[in-house]
């Protein structure tokens, strides 16, 4: 299959700030492609360039073979976009929102009405189609927003943080819908902060940091690149005061982290750590209630590649643009 989306040297300057730095990647037709990165990394700027909202300073992008700048109308006919905010018309009904979207795509009346009915039924909102959207829950507004993006039977769906801020039920409904749509052949470009979600749903992920693509690969291959991030999770019935420090000093443990009532011991050799943890528990008369060996998660890969770490009270996080200006040697005046 050919590529659905191709970014070629996509670059964006905001005055002297280099927001996106010569980004290249390809999304195959029919895949779910995750686009991850910390806040201010350039995710939204990249999406805005891919969808034709923002003009790249350099480079270009193609959507199903159409150049987004030179043949923007043809390119936009191929895609549906769900931004991070549900930008529905709150004073219109669910039905009218979909019909208006159909009119924007110049769909014939009979087709837009049958498509709106089909989508509202698919999204479980047909019974409430006549109600104004302002009375809908956040999850329902999100579903309407996705339905609007699908009105024109697009080939590609851009989803920017589709499940952010939603309740568990809405998240499950939307994830299920995304999977079903993908099974029907739709290409999905998914931006998310939820790394577990990306790991579960995406065929491939790209991680962007400081405007540059740090890596593009399948989640499992990425996890294998950081074998050093294997860990052993242990929990004791009663936790001694110095447990964290003592566990960190065990042989083969590179780092120990307290996570709730558990300890996560990072190691290259889980079996040695299991043995030494057992000895530690015996020597201190501790009862082990949980022991798990855990492979590296996509979140571990993300943390390693982006170098992010939690800020302490003394260590205020840098503003993203300040950090970028300091770290980007090639910042220049906007041309």
């Amino acid at each position, binding site marked *: 299959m050919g590529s659905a989306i191709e970014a070629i040297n996509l670059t964006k300057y905001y005055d002297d700030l280099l927001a996106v730095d010569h980004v290249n990647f390809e999304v195959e037709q029919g895949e779910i492609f995750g686009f991850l990165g910390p806040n201010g990394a350039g995710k939204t700027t990249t999406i805005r360039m891919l969808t034709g909202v923002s003009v790249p300073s350099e480079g270009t992008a193609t959507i199903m073979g159409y150049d987004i700048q030179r043949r923007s109308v043809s390119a*936009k006919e191929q895609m549906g976009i769900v931004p991070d905010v549900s*930008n529905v018309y709150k*004073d219109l009904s669910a039905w009218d929102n979909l019909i208006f979207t159909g009119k924007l*795509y110049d769909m014939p009346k009979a087709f837009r009405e049958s498509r709106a009915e089909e989508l509202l039924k698919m999204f479980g909102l047909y019974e409430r189609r006549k109600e104004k959207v302002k009375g809908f829950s956040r999850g329902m507004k999100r579903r309407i927003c996705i339905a609007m993006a699908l009105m024109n039977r697009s080939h590609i769906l851009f989803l920017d943080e589709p499940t952010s801020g939603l309740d568990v039920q809405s998240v499950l409904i939307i994830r299920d819908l995304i999977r079903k749509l993908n099974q029907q052949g739709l290409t999905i470009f998914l931006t998310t902060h939820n790394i577990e979600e990306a790991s579960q749903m995406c065929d491939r992920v790209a991680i962007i940091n400081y405007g540059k693509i740090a890596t593009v690969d399948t989640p499992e291959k990425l996890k294998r690149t950081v074998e050093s991030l294997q860990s052993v999770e242990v929990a004791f019935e009663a936790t001694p005061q110095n447990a964290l420090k003592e566990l960190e000093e065990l042989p083969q443990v590179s780092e120990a982290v307290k996570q709730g009532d558990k300890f996560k011991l990072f190691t290259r050799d889980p079996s040695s750590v299991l043995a030494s943890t057992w000895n530690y528990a015996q020597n201190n008369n501790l009862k082990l209630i949980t022991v798990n060996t855990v492979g590296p998660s996509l979140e571990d890969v993300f943390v390693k590649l982006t170098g992010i770490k939690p800020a302490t009270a003394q260590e205020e996080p840098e503003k993203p643009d300040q950090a970028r200006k300091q770290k980007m040697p090639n910042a220049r005046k906007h041309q």
Partner: protein
Amino acid sequence: MKDVHSSHVGREIRVAWAIAAKDMRTYYTQPPSIMFGILFPFTLFLAFTIGRNLPLAEQIPILISQTLFFASSSIGPVVIPLERADQTFERFLTSPVSLLAILMGKTLGGIIYGAGISVIPVLVGIVFFGSQITNLGALIACFALSSLAFSALGIMFAQSLDRLSGR
């Protein structure tokens, strides 16, 4: 080639009409539209005429022109910032819609609102004060051209206000 061109023009007109119709349903009854499009010209008219001995034949055209100006020019600065704030304006930018169709739609919304509201003082003049239309063609042309110009003026101000507010 001609068919392609005419279908393209037809599409632009259909999309512009869809945008204008949506604006009518969504924003015509918003408080800022009512305030600046209806109450403001009426109040200004009262402030301008009360205490002066102007003949009725002169008062009604003043009210009509003020209504036409304020109602037509108020829609752009109401609708566009609201759409930017709700991020619904991005819908146009990500849809296969030309900038011309968006501008036509927004301007048409102002024209219909301005011309529609301005018919009220005309009817009031005819029904209650016995005013007469001496040249209907000139009146219609005046309504069409003025509402077009004032609506476009409103769109222009909406754009610059939007930029000033940093949106």
